[in-house]
């Protein structure tokens, strides 16, 4: 149905100047962000402790990263908190849709030929190459698992870290997922399909995983480094902008406890099939410790709910005149 219908329009605003956008947003009730505590002087970081409930320090959307990995900054502003600076004549990307130029990643990952071919095969609904929902092949829009490290590179929302004597567990709000990171001294398997400990009687059979196989260790009293491999093939994307990953990927997460209130998360990607060299996909995302009483909301992806939504937005949003 086209817009020839005359509807009782009370107001029709054509806001052609993107710079008029503001950045107002909701906040999670009960959460504390850095802007709530301007001028604070946090206490010292506790030793070998990253446990607790963490929320992006800059606000609930601080870990969403619609631009994709390695592009942490939002669209540029004239000044802090000011108007966006956006090219009003944004170029048409290889997906055929013009999107605000400010969504382009600041740094392009070092693709191999296969990596570049794979990223072009990924048709995302976010980032510089975004298309309408009806044209995407993003697996998470079918409620497939987003997998790791996408859970950190897109929609890093409230998460709880639990520490035991043998492992660290991270509970993620987004998609209601969890990961287990071994800290009992075992090494990352050289061949994740055949880890050395698979001969022990209490070991699970080796398997490739949506979330990989993770081991972690403290490199000093305030820095916890996690390495993960054992991934599936390229059915998972690295982020919402469609960056590729393969079964050869190894991910290094660094959790640095800055002070009593803050934790910084960085991520390095090594994947010789998709990238010519290791690169930093996340650079010191600041997380803020919340009260132990802070509740993590449920944020599931229901396939049947999504199917109902698809009747309208998944199936009817493109492509006529969509540029």
């Amino acid at each position, binding site marked *: 149905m086209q817009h020839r219908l005359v509807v*009782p329009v009370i107001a029709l605003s054509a806001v052609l100047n993107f710079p008029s*956008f503001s950045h107002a947003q909701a906040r999670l009730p009960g959460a504390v962000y850095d802007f709530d505590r301007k001028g604070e002087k946090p206490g010292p970081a506790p030793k070998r402790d990253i446990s607790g409930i963490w929320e992006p320090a800059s606000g609930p*959307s601080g870990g969403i990263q619609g631009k994709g990995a390695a592009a942490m900054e*939002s669209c540029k502003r004239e000044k802090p*908190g000011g108007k966006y600076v956006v090219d009003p004549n944004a170029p048409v990307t290889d997906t055929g849709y013009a999107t605000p130029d400010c969504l382009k990643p600041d740094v392009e990952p070092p693709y191999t030929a296969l990596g570049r071919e794979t990223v072009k095969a990924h048709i995302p609904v976010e980032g510089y190459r975004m298309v309408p929902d009806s044209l995407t092949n993003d697996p998470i829009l079918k409620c497939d698992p987003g997998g790791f490290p996408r859970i950190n590179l897109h929609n890093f929302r409230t998460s709880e870290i639990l520490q035991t004597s043998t492992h660290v567990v991270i509970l993620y709000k987004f998609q209601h997922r969890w990961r287990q990171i071994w800290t009992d001294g075992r090494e990352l398997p050289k061949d994740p399909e055949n880890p050395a400990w698979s001969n022990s009687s209490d070991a699970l059979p080796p398997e490739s995983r949506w979330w990989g196989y993770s081991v972690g260790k403290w490199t000093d009293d305030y820095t916890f480094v996690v390495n993960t491999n054992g991934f599936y093939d390229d059915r998972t994307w690295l982020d919402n902008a469609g960056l590729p990953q393969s079964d050869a990927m190894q991910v290094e997460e660094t959790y640095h406890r800055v002070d009593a209130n803050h934790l910084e998360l960085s991520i390095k990607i090594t994947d010789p099939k998709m990238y010519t060299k290791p690169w930093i996909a996340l650079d010191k995302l600041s997380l803020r410790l919340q009260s132990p009483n802070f509740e993590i909301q449920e944020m599931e992806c229901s396939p049947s*709910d*999504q199917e109902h939504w698809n009747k309208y937005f998944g199936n009817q949003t493109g492509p006529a005149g969509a540029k």
Partner: protein
Amino acid sequence: MKQSLAAMLVLTVALLIVSPSLVAHHGSASFDTAKKLTLKGSVVEWFWANPHCFLRFSVKDESGQAVEWVVETQSGPNILPLGYTKQTFKPGDEVTVTLQPVRNGKPLGRLLSVVLPNGKKLGAMGEGSGTANGSDEPK
């Protein structure tokens, strides 16, 4: 009357305020981010869902023909802080919806704000709202 005028003022100001970067689950390529429509209509369905809630409402055009519009918003947990609940709308409620339409001309859009039958206005992520717990994120 003063309340209505105030509500309209808030609505008008709010129309000029939206962020392109706060969409949680999917992007905005489907939507004409340069346009906004405000429509009065009658609720057909309020679908409280994960990962996206949506509101179907019927709008009459000038000839009296009913046109069904559908506007999406974020997941239930995401919009709870903005004041929405599963019971916010019931079929037949008269509402005023401000939306960002899709680019292809179909009666679909993204919910920016809605005025309920009792005059209360609820916003959406990225929308300046007079009633939601919005806050400016410092950068």
